[in-house]
């Protein structure tokens, strides 16, 4: 698994180049001068001045253009913190800490035929991963779902770097009707030869992906979230239960041991 080293930790300001709507979310494009080298699945602690909230917000990196230094965040404004960041205006500076955490396994480790599964805003980090996989010569098969078409995230970019993209909405407003994890089962015949699964979304989605990976006999990795304070592994606030506790240890840290875990590593709840 890829892992950040101490030297990878940066604290820097980045200018908001664009802020555009994407369904119910906002797509923020940031111009980054700092020499960062993020991996898909890693995240940033993001702060915007004038916030009523005290702590920064952990947001996954949804895309990264290393050549131009452009970083994308797909933000669903759900609370005071994310609403404040999502309304940053072009030209404004945001404060970023990162890249943080362990991301998805490398394209080599995910193999020749990776499957990506995203739910709602959880599709955000899969865009960056799909781009890496496509660049490595193994574009993924991608399934993304949401409650409705307005909540499908990253569709356009994922279409551009996936072998095949299947959309699912619970209300049927876009793509196939139903939960993405149910829709996948209807495509099982087309998934023979899949080498791994990478997923991000709510706990229910990750649980379903775990069952699917057992059925297909392939390793599965999921990106998790939890309330976070430091983001660097110091405070132990973002605990996730281990699948197999032992030696007096029951929890891992989402921020530093994750946010991406092998689904067999953790207890999904």
């Amino acid at each position, binding site marked *: 698994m890829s892992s950040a080293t*101490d030297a990878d930790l940066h604290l820097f300001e980045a200018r908001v180049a664009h802020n555009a709507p994407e369904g119910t979310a906002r797509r923020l494009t940031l111009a980054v001068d700092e020499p960062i080298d993020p991996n898909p699945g890693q995240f940033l602690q993001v702060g915007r001045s004038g916030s009523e909230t005290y*702590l920064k917000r952990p947001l996954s990196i949804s895309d990264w253009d290393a050549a131009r230094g452009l970083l994308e965040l797909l933000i669903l404004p759900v609370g005071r913190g994310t609403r404040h960041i999502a309304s940053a205006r072009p030209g404004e500076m945001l404060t970023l800490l990162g890249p943080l955490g362990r991301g998805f396994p490398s394209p080599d480790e995910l193999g020749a035929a990776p499957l990506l599964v995203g739910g709602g805003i959880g599709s955000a980090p899969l865009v960056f991963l799909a781009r890496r996989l496509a660049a490595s010569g193994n574009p993924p098969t991608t399934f993304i779902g949401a409650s409705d078409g307005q909540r499908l995230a990253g569709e356009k970019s994922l279409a551009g770097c996936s072998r095949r993209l299947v959309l699912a909405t619970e209300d049927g407003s876009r793509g196939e009707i139903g939960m993405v994890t149910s829709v996948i089962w209807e495509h099982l015949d087309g998934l023979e030869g899949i080498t791994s699964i990478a997923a991000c979304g709510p706990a229910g989605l990750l649980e379903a992906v775990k069952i699917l990976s057992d059925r297909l006999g392939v390793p599965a990795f999921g990106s998790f979230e939890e*309330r976070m304070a430091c983001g*660097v*592994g110091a405070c132990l606030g973002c605990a996730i239960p281990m699948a197999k506790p032992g030696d007096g240890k029951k929890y891992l840290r989402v921020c530093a041991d994750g946010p991406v875990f092998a689904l067999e590593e953790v207890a999904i709840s």
Partner: protein
Amino acid sequence: MKTDLSIRFGELELANPLVAVSGTFGYGFDYEPIIPPETFGAVVVKGTSLEPWPGNAPPRIVETPSGMLNAIGLENPGVDVLIEEYLPRLAERDTKVIVNVVGRTVDGYVGVAEKLDQRPEVHALELNVSCPNVDAGGMSFGTSPEAVAELIGATRRVTQKPLIVKLTPNVTDITVVARAAEEAGADALSLINTLLGMAIDTETGRPILANVVGGLSGPAIRPVALRCVYQARAATNLPIMGLGGVSSAEDVVAFIMAGASAVGIGTAMFADPRTPGRIVEELKEYRSRYDEWPIGRAHQ
């Protein structure tokens, strides 16, 4: 500007008054290279028990106005892992090392103190008396002057290290426990630990923290902490480490004026990891105003 920020905290000569507080800075290395451990006059490492403690179920934290609640449950790998893995690394760095000691029984604390007594990497022990005392029905050691005194006496018998007692503000009169600690032979006090609080999710109707209640930290508690330091200074002659919501050099100086000779920072690092470096830089200007650190000036 080359300014000497050193300050004497009891038996410890600190390079500057700023201290990374227990539970917010891990074992000193998580924030590298942004906050190297030598930024601080001293680093208090994570609360350490005799055996590993797994900690509480999540959610463990929740943000609150100007601060946060935490109920980590003192997760730690135990004193043996501290000695083998973390102390040697920390000893290579130019800062004083204080170990926060936790236990559920007097024997639990004593066991940790005994193991650390011969460790040259450790400059002092900080007894976290906010833990529930299993032998006293789970009531925190720190709310009972007798329990605090017993704990200090028992620990003193197994170690020559300076003993700092970290007091809880969740008492009617903090000076009663501060005096009890002084009489029992404590070398210094640190205050305050977090204030007990809770948060409720109005969608689910349930407490947000799995532990139901948690400790409040951050700027929200700073006036309470300052008041406690001021009162403890007036009530005892012990050196004091003041902490609670410290976020600026001005806050550090205010705690010093209230009577502290070391000042802890914790939660503010989560909000902005640049804060400790900025504070140390800004303290130089403050320091140049005085012939000596204005410890306890607010009492004059």
